[in-house]
């Protein structure tokens, strides 16, 4: 796997022609960096990811991979899917086999790999997602969080350059979210570019190198601090401002935080605060 740049420009797409969900949306997935796609329910996050993955052909606009335009032909899609994989929000939309290991093998088998290669891919994907212990378990006995990670393993076994995840942390408890994020970090080390959609602004601030907010059919992209600090944009996007930015700004005004980027989560904030009473100047 190597890093390729996935991009979209001028995407118009949706299910009703008169009211497209996306209307001229452009986005660049920075190779090798973490991108969080933010938006309220129904804003078009999923539609955007489906366009990027090739699952949905936009009415207008184009999707490119390292500059080469995605063509919605059998061969074009086949080539695109080897590099870009989408994991849907509901794992039951992707798991069809009763056995976890067999389900994960589906993609590699479709790529026409030899049995040994398939076996290696499956083992690798299960290990990356830390679900090797589930290999022998039936899909229908897994918990929701486990099914989500197995669905991710199914995509990872295709060894995509870019992995698109639709709401990978939705419905997971804090520990499961932590496990999912750890898995994403391992993927990144294995040279995949990871994109996740979410409406959790605190999570996006904590995790992402870059964020893209889907609002009114378009995309506003930038650093987490800038984009998630833009109150007017967030209001339009029906999102909240992350608490860490709100509280951090006030504490900086009080002279309690050093210059530079604001802390992105509670741990970083505690680390940045002075240990004892006494005000910085």
């Amino acid at each position, binding site marked *: 796997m190597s890093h390729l740049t996935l991009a979209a420009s001028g995407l118009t797409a949706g299910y009703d022609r008169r009211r497209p969900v996306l209307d001229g949306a452009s986005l660049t997935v920075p190779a090798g960096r973490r991108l969080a796609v933010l938006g309220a329910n129904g804003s078009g996050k999923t539609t955007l990811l489906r366009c990027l*993955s*090739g*699952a949905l052909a936009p009415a207008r606009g184009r999707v490119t991979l390292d500059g080469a335009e995605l063509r919605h032909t059998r061969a074009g899609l*086949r080539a695109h*899917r080897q590099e870009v*994989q*989408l994991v*849907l929000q*509901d794992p*039951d*939309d*992707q*798991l*069809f*086999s*009763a*056995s976890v*290991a*067999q*389900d994960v*093998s*589906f*993609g*590699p*088998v*479709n*790529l026409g790999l030899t*049995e040994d290669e*398939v*076996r290696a891919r*499956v083992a690798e994907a299960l290990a990356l997602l830390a679900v090797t212990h589930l290999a*022998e*378990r*039936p*899909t*229908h*006995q897994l918990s929701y969080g486990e099914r989500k990670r197995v669905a991710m393993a*199914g*995509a990872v076994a*295709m060894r995509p350059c870019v992995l698109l995840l639709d709401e990978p942390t939705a419905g997971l408890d804090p520990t499961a979210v932590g496990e999912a994020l750890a898995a994403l970090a391992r993927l990144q080390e294995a040279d995949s570019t990871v994109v996740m959609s979410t409406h959790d602004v605190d999570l996006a601030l904590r995790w992402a190198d870059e964020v893209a907010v889907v609002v009114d059919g378009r995309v506003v992209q930038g650093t987490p601090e800038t984009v998630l600090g833009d109150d007017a944009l967030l209001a339009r996007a029906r999102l909240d401002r992350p608490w860490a930015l709100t509280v951090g700004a006030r504490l900086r005004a009080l002279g309690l935080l050093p210059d530079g980027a604001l802390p992105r989560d509670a741990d970083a904030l505690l680390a940045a605060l002075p240990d004892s009473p006494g005000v910085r100047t």
Partner: protein
Amino acid sequence: MTGLAIDDAAWASAWRRRSPADKLLLSGGLVVGALVLPAWPGSVLVALTAVVLALGPARVPALTFGRAIRLPLAFITIGALTAVVQVGDGIGWAPDAATRAGELVGHALAGSAAVLLLATTTPMSDLLPALQRLRVPDAVIEVASVTYRLLFVLLTSLTTIREAQTARMGHSTVRRSYRSSGVLAAAVLTRSWDRARRLQDGLAGRGMETGLRVLPETLPSSRRFEALTVAGLAALVTVGVLA
């Protein structure tokens, strides 16, 4: 979680990793034995063998096995009693009623126990690929595999919807219960279509072009298990026929 007790037992069984072919040989032999051997002592021996193997080496929970074997019992009892009731000028027992009823019940219970031995040790998804050897087409096996996966998804929907209906008094009278069941069946039917459509989308992204091909699982046969099976079945037949 909506599980089926027999299915749960199969996945947890100590024989889960045994070759389905080996288990088919054993259970198939017992099923045939239950059918063709004289009920006494043949059926009894078959039933005992199936129960001992299931609860012993295969470590199937006794509760699960016991409950499951109870299910066909109503049919077997009524069916056997009806067979030995004689109707002509009046209603009465056939002359050999007790023996014949005993034989019928013996064959059927032994057969059911033998099938249950297979069912509680072998998940459906291991058995379906074995059908390939019987020249069942791949397409049919794939349809059956999808059925197996989706029935749990739909069963969860069914129980949840029914629970929600019950909470809102949807099953408080026979009349309401019928109305609610109609709504329930329709809801599950629409969900099954919706599931199929969404799964199709999801699998297209994973490169589905023709079939649902996956890596076959290798559960190698055990020579020892096969030899013991053949020897045991031969012993059963000998005892069953000679006694």
